[in-house]
């Protein structure tokens, strides 16, 4: 960890009352722990990105192309013509300040340029200078400033300190969405070859191998064999997990971390057990082995290039519809972008649960259903035999992941599942959950280890709410629906609120699921099952 030395009370030596100074002067300082490394040349090349080169954000010389300024301004003009959101949100902000203390990075760092309003002003000031009459005439008086290298560096610093979580947007009286602003800023930075490793490398891996981790198909198959062996040991049941199987009814797509990382792995086991138990006619795919989409953190074009695989594979395998696993920005992409990017999915059928006959009317065009919608429906129809007591060692809370919350409004489905698979469930305070949920601090490509200080700062409001329910109810498990959460919350809690673990919703489903013919003594983490009281004869 980059800042073993920084203690929580030192890190929180921040003030929400900024000094009165002129923010128009660029101030980004590339301090270790607060920024991400630049994208490696190899992956820039693989994706054919513009202005490829090796460079380092901490260097004075960014090796920008000679005409970088024209490139940016021309790009800005193009984006203004393409995105009403961009043009409108640059024009109508009244700087009322309602968003100021809503950003987790501001709450954790006190850096005024992390107030959403000021983050947007970093871009808005340049827009005014080159695209508005007032800015051209009055300059700084109108809040306009020249585009200089220092301004560009400031953009890079602060637009890679926004996790595109959209929390500020719900407080804005006009719905100004800083995520849109950040996306546009990143599109502009891309044009001059300035993006980060933890966005470009996963995107490049995904383009080539179908998943972020760069797992080739044979290794993918191998991890499945490990998982099935493990499940055999845990349950005594031989489970089948079809891969690339043509003619299956359903294609299942999960974030690739689920079958490689921890604690995602246990959720992966949960899926496999669930699908086996209900006898689902489905398949995994190696080509579309990633639902997550790091392209979304880069540009709409790259997001579309990566997302293309899901429908293409559904068509090739001849499935009827698609089911999606637990992931955050994957679901933002699927819910709000996929149909537009790569639809219409007229070769698929409107999703119907083969077990309950429920028609998923809300997914009738995109034809992709969220796993919690699917499982909640199974539970409601009493299709699963569940023993919630098997999760009794956990006092569980639910962290609404930003994207399923604010893009879909997926609040009741996961909570319904959790309340059926465990006996001790406690929500965090109202203003930190559902549409007001806080980001883990590592979203939108900011989850790299070199950025750890910023991640810990940004994750502080979430961790603080967890600490509240830990102290009040003894909560020791945070359940969530996002692969980035599952990767980033464990180190976050270890720092701020030790003793709390992280799991996916379907890990707890897997624990509680009473399978036909099972012999189980341990939960999915290999710990002895908390047994319900032995029936006395």
């Amino acid at each position, binding site marked *: 960890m980059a800042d073993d030395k920084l203690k*929580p*009370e030192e890190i*929180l030596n921040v003030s*929400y*009352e900024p000094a009165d100074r002129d*923010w128009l002067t660029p101030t980004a300082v590339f301090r270790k722990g607060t920024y991400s490394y630049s994208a490696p040349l190899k992956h820039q090349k693989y994706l054919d990105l513009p202005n490829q080169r090796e460079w380092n954000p901490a260097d004075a010389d960014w090796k920008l192309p000679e005409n970088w300024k024209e490139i940016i301004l021309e790009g800005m003009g193009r984006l203004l013509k393409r*995105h*009403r*959101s961009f*043009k*409108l949100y640059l024009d109508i902000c*009244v*700087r*009322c*300040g*309602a968003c100021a*203390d*809503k950003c987790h990075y501001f*709450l954790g760092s006190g850096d005024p340029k992390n*107030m959403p*309003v000021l983050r947007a002003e970093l871009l808005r000031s340049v827009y005014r200078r080159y695209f508005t*009459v*007032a800015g051209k005439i009055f300059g700084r008086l*109108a*809040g306009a400033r020249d585009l200089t290298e220092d301004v560009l560096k400031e953009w890079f610093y602060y637009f890679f300190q926004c996790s595109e979580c959209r929390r500020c*947007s*719900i*407080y804005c*009286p*006009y*719905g100004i969405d800083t995520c849109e602003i950040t996306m546009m800023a990143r599109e502009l930075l891309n044009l001059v070859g300035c993006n980060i490793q933890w966005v470009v490398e996963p995107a490049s891996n995904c383009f080539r*191998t179908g998943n972020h981790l760069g797992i080739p*198909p*044979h290794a993918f*198959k191998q991890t499945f064999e490990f998982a099935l062996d493990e499940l055999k040991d845990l349950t005594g049941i031989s489970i089948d997990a079809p891969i690339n*199987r043509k003619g299956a009814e359903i294609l299942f797509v999960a974030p690739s971390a689920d079958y490689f990382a921890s604690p995602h792995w246990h959720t992966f086991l949960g899926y496999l057990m669930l699908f086996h138990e209900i006898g689902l006619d489905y398949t995994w795919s190696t*080509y579309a082995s990633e639902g997550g989409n790091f392209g979304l953190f880069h540009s*709409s*074009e790259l997001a579309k*290039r990566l997302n293309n695989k899901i429908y*293409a594979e559904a068509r*090739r395998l001849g499935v009827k519809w698609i089911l999606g696993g637990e992931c955050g920005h994957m679901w933002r992409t699927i*819910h*709000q*972008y996929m149909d*537009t990017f790569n639809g*219409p999915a007229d070769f698929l059928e409107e999703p119907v649960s083969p077990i309950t006959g429920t028609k*998923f*009317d*809300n997914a*009738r065009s995109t034809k992709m259903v969220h796993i919690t*919608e699917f499982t*909640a429906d199974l539970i*409601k129809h009493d299709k699963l035999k569940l023993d919630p007591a098997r999760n009794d060692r956990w006092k569980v809370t639910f962290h609404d992941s930003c994207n399923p919350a604010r893009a879909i*409004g*997926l*609040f009741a489905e996961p909570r319904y599942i959790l309340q059926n698979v465990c006996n001790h469930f406690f929500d965090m305070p109202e203003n930190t959950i559902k549409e007001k949920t806080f980001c883990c601090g590592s979203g939108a490509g900011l989850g790299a280890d070199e950025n750890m200080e910023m991640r810990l700062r940004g994750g*502080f*409001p979430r961790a*603080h709410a967890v600490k509240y329910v830990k102290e009040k109810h003894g909560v020791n498990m945070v359940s969530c629906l996002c692969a980035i959460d599952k990767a980033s919350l464990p180190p976050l809690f270890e720092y701020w609120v030790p003793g709390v673990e992280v799991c996916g919703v379907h890990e707890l489903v897997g624990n509680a699921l009473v399978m036909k013919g099972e012999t189980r003594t341990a939960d999915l983490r290999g710990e002895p099952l908390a047994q319900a009281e032995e029936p006395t004869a």
Partner: protein
Amino acid sequence: MNRMWIALIAVLALIIIPWVGVGAAGLTLLFGVGIPYIACLIFFVGFIYRIVSWAQSPVPFHIPTICGQQKSLPWIKANNRESPHSYWGLFARMALEVLFFRSLLRNDRAELKQRQRLIYSSNRFLWAGGLLFHWSLIIVLFRHLRFFTEPVLPGIAFVQNLDALFHVGLPALYITDVAIIVGLSYLFLRRVIYPQMRLISLPSDYFVLLLIIAVVLSGVLMRHFFKIDAEKAKELALSIASFRPVIPTAIGLPFYIHLFLVSILAAYLPFSKLMHAPGVFFSPTRNLKNDSRARRHINPWSYPVKVHTYEEYEDEFREAMKEAGLPVEKE
């Protein structure tokens, strides 16, 4: 703070212009007829231009920000106002936002206590101050229609009487005149007092507030203190509105100051953040239903992109796939 002083000086300068122009130079035609007409022209042309320019940029993606439970399974209660699935829900969401500032009602304030405890407290002052100002403004503007209609329309007289309910003073003091001053004062003071607000406020933020305050004060002053000839003011208003302007006779200097400030405000509005008023209706995070997966949204500038096809993928990994027992398209 410099930014505030710049704005204050600008507004004071704007007050001096008609003072000199009408009071000393007697340019009543210019200030009573010419400038208002020019300002109206700029207002209408600018307003339409801005709206057209927004409308010309498409909405490529379906990006509402959702604040309530989606409509999914039949037994889950969907929140049609915060996550609209029908046009009624969408209408309600927009109406609540535009008329009652729904999102500001959500506002809370975060404070860090003793470097470790993050405390949130409800903070509805901005919501209340904003509502007070905007609703008062609407009623004040509506009341002004009495200067532009003859005979005065009954609805206007009704609102006017209601507004002067307490009948304090002569002429009666309007409730909304007091309310708008209270609202504006709050909106101004918060920019001066709170450090976050001081930092983010631009000269133009102070300028519009001070300009509107000057408009209101000049109006109130000429009603209650420096009496003007209201009948003549109405004659001028009617003549301007019917495009048969008469050269106004002595109405009183305060009227010209009021009129000039209003003209400046109208001409400035299309180029300012005050365009948030029509802008909110265009906001794609608010004006779209949460039916992203139920209805396909079209991106008008969508273009083909370079993808990595399954064939290319299999070509790279075929041997390994075969070895691992994975099915392949080409043997």
